[in-house]
């Protein structure tokens, strides 16, 4: 794919509508790229894992990775610039004119409407990665039990302990290399 303008636009939109952290961005990227056939859901899971394991901002990692897979280094440059540009423009405007804007009742009430939608985005992301990782054949008779087990154990560890997500991903990868070769 070498339609750089489209690639830039997809990531610009994604950056613009990412509110409250990188995980909320994943369903948007999935919708834009998977529906156009540029990426499979399984590849998007790899993208999330790799972006979490590497240092730096998660969203930038994901954009660079997706852009590179679609169109090499130029694709990575275009996707990364696209996802950053909304941040840059909006921050420079806000920093210049109204640093205290988040105390405005209009901004607060608008955000009160957006935040539940962001939570719904995370849930839809969860449903989509769960289907692809645990039910790859979309049938209850073909549950990937080892993967389900990893998901349950790691969910508990992430919620109950302070072990870093990057370390847990690394360990589950090592587990997979040893036990889940197929």
């Amino acid at each position: 794919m070498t339609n750089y303008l489209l690639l830039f636009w997809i990531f610009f939109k994604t950056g613009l509508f990412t509110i409250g952290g990188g995980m909320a961005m994943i369903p948007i990227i999935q919708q834009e790229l998977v529906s156009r056939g540029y990426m499979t859901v399984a590849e998007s899971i790899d993208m999330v894992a790799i972006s979490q394991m590497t240092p730096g901002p998660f969203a930038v990692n994901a954009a660079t990775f997706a852009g590179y897979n679609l169109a090499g280094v130029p694709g990575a440059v275009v996707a990364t610039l696209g996802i950053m540009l909304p941040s840059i423009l909006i921050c420079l405007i806000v920093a210049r004119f109204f640093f205290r804007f988040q105390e405005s009742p209009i901004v607060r009430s608008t955000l009160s409407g957006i935040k539940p939608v962001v939570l719904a985005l995370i849930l839809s992301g969860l449903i989509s990665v769960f289907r692809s990782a645990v039910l790859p054949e979309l049938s209850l008779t073909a549950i990937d039990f080892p993967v389900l087990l990893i998901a349950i154990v790691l969910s508990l560890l992430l919620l109950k302990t302070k072990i870093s997500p990057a370390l847990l991903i690394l360990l589950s990868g090592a587990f997979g290399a040893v036990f889940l070769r197929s």
Partner: protein
Amino acid sequence: MDNNHHIPQKLSLKKLLNIFLITFKIGSVTFGGGMAMLTIISAEFSEKRDWVSGDDISDIAAVAQTLPGIIAVNVSILTGYRIGGVPAALVAGLGSVLPSFIVLCIIATFYSVLSDNVYVRGILRGVSGAVVALFVSTLYKMSRKNVKDLWGLGFFIIAIALMLIFPSLSVIYIILGGALLGFVLYYLILRRSGGAGND
């Protein structure tokens, strides 16, 4: 309010280079998103060098999370701006993402060559369980912060229903719909009636 808006200090080329090197270092060692990055930014630019104040850092934390866009990029742009205006903001933004960019390009090269290898497939299969867990923990941690009342719960249910029933409907419209309804409900309706006595 105006003391927040101080005039950026005089900016030398050496200082710009320093900002780049420090943010590059921060970008190479930060795991775990924008707020983790802010902790290191605060240590480097406020505690160690006193280029921005502690008040600036807490303003930056609040604004960076509220604005659309990538929180970590918001943090570095806002910090850079406070130190030295637009040039410093751009340099800080570039410095903080460049390590990611380089590392991910290298990994993506290997990924496209190795993604069919049985060991790599095994690793990725194990890791896919971890990604499910990441969504579970994000969902849990966000749930209390993002849904604060019954209206919010209603917004959440409608939004997830729309996403599941109409998978091809762009989620961007759902976000915009939430923004508009949030403004109408919380600003125009509840705030007025709350002002009348029952908050």
